[in-house]
């Protein structure tokens, strides 16, 4: 008898507790990104940019009159951790939409689950082409790797005017490889790629590769990668006395923090420039510095825009229903955004131009805004 009573009590208690979730009195957005580890600067940027947007929205009355809540989990840059984070967000926190993942690798891992769940996903920063492929509910606020690589090739040909180029990329990283291959494909119709060299994620010694490039006729080097390895490579290149310019992609953002002197004179393509004079950019930069004490990276700007895009879509849809949000995202035409305008093509990719930046005296100087189409 006692046992039966215990079981009945436990069951009813559980039922009582479960009824406490799922009440739609707040709008819940989730973010996933590396908050710890080698790449924490990227995940923290995304979280902060999103948080700034959420705080501003709440001050202005929230979305559909409800308070917005941002829940962030750490992916450590690892796809398995990312999937765990997504499951938690979906089951425990019951988010209405996902602003994530930050890394392409993690986002690709989550994509299948998100498609199955019909969860509205707007990744601010995953640039791999496959992320939005065959996924009606997945959108991105940033341009793709293939687009970046292509535009970099156009920039190197038309602005830097180099005819012979070397390409150096990380064969263990989908992002680096994606940009490199897209660059090569576009550049081969304009000039010659004299050397294509790769390094691995475990490598520290790039001297033999740099020596090969030095001995070649390369006038510029395309080096898509993240700050940790790019910084080391640029330092070793400077030590070897290399004077030709290096060009990179959005992974270079913040390289001036630790490596300003060796990166001086080099270029990279980014989603926005904090020195851009447009009012919405400067307001964003000022408010971000006030709240977080440091200057925002492009990833923060993208996350900020992504949250606003999602907010606009929810307002347009007039509801938090997944299908309604997705339909609203498809029709979204946000002309005022920090990273340019946001309008999605039939794939879920945005149509926008790339800001090409040169690092001079540790500052980002806007050189050009290049379109790939």
């Amino acid at each position, binding site marked *: 008898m006692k046992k039966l009573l215990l079981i009945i009590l436990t069951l009813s208690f559980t039922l009582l507790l479960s009824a406490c979730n799922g009440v739609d009195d707040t709008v819940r957005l989730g973010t996933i990104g590396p908050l710890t580890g080698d790449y*924490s600067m990227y995940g923290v940027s995304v979280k902060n940019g999103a948080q700034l947007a959420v705080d501003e929205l709440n001050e202005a009355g929230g979305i559909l009159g409800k308070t917005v809540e941002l829940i962030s989990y750490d992916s450590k840059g690892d796809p398995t951790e990312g999937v765990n984070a997504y499951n938690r967000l979906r089951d425990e926190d019951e988010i209405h939409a996902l602003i994530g993942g930050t890394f392409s690798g993690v986002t690709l891992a989550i994509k299948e689950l998100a498609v199955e769940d019909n969860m509205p996903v707007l990744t601010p920063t995953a640039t791999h082409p496959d992320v939005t492929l065959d996924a009606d509910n997945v959108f991105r606020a940033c341009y793709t790797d293939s687009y970046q690589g292509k535009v970099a090739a156009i920039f190197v040909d038309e602005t830097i005017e180099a005819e012979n180029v070397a390409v150096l990329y990380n064969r263990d990283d989908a992002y680096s490889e994606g940009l490199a291959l897209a660059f090569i494909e576009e550049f081969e119709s304009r000039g010659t790629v004299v050397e294509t060299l790769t390094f691995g994620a475990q490598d520290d010694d790039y001297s033999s590769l740099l*020596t090969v490039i030095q*001995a070649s006729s390369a006038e510029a080097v395309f080096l898509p990668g993240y700050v940790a390895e790019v910084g080391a490579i640029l330092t070793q290149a*400077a030590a*070897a006395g290399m004077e030709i310019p290096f060009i990179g992609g959005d992974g270079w953002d913040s390289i001036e923090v630790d490596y300003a002197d060796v990166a001086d004179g080099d270029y990279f393509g980014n989603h926005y420039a904090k020195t851009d004079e447009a009012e919405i950019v400067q307001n964003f930069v000022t408010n971000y510095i006030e709240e977080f004490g440091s200057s925002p990276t492009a990833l923060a700007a993208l996350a900020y825009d992504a949250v606003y895009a999602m907010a606009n879509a929810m307002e347009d849809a007039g509801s938090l229903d997944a299908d309604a949000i997705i339909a609203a995202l498809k029709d979204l035409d946000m002309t005022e955004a920090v990273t340019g305008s946001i309008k999605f093509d039939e794939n879920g990719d945005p149509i926008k131009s790339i800001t090409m930046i040169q690092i001079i005296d540790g500052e980002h100087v806007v050189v050009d805004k290049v379109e790939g189409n």
Partner: protein
Amino acid sequence: MNADLELFIRQLINGLNTGSIYALIAIGYTMVYGIIKLINFAHGEIMMFGAYFAFLFATTIPTDLPFLVIVIMAMVLAALMGVATEKIAYKRLRTAPRISALITAIGMSLFLQNLALLIFKPQPKVMPELISKKAIIIFGIGVPQITLYTIGISILMMIILSIFIKKTKAGKAMRAVSQDKDAAMLMGINVDGIISLTFAIGSALGALGGVFYSIAYTQVYPTMGVMPGLKAFIAAVFGGIGNVGGAMLGGYVIGIIETMTKGYISSRWADALVFGILILVLLFKPSGILGKNVKEKV
């Protein structure tokens, strides 16, 4: 100078640079194995801590210390660390089955890596340029100063070590202990002291390698000792584990093969080739190139 020749010489210099560092680390592995028949897998982590010590001295102390002072302090600290790991983890297992000591060494390696992760955090830190990376022109080829220092100081250290092992009493005692520990004890040699000395010297040289490595390749991070440690271990086995001269030879051979492969074939093949050579050597000459059967160690 002919462009192809110049390229070859540049790559050779790169190889000598990498080789010097592998040789310094390999000596540590080989000396410890020679004396207590243990592969000290934690040696790569001593190299990493040596680099971190130098980083700390160079960045936290407000005055600008000369390179020599920083390096010597790092080497001393690393030597103490090596002696400590021996006393804490390996000493009591001297009579245990070899596998127990091996597993302890692996455990020590993981422990030290994670300790570094906890203390220093995973983000790679930029090593200050304690030795300039600017190039000096020699015979028309620009060689970075750090490369000259690395190769020069490494060779100097190896010569000093060889003289030490051959000519001093302590060196003789080390050779005696590695030949026959019990007989050495009967001869009145303080075996414990000699073992500690071995760990100290090996760790100091490993730390020196770590300092050169981090200056040349820019960054210090907690797992930086893993790959170089592994390659140095291969170099030690290649040259004949237990043989100091073999470790030096092995270090340079592996370093040059790795660099030449990256420069002339493809960087994808470099690691595969290095590990492949290890397998070949072990198949055909298991005792390594300079083998244990050679009486005179160095």
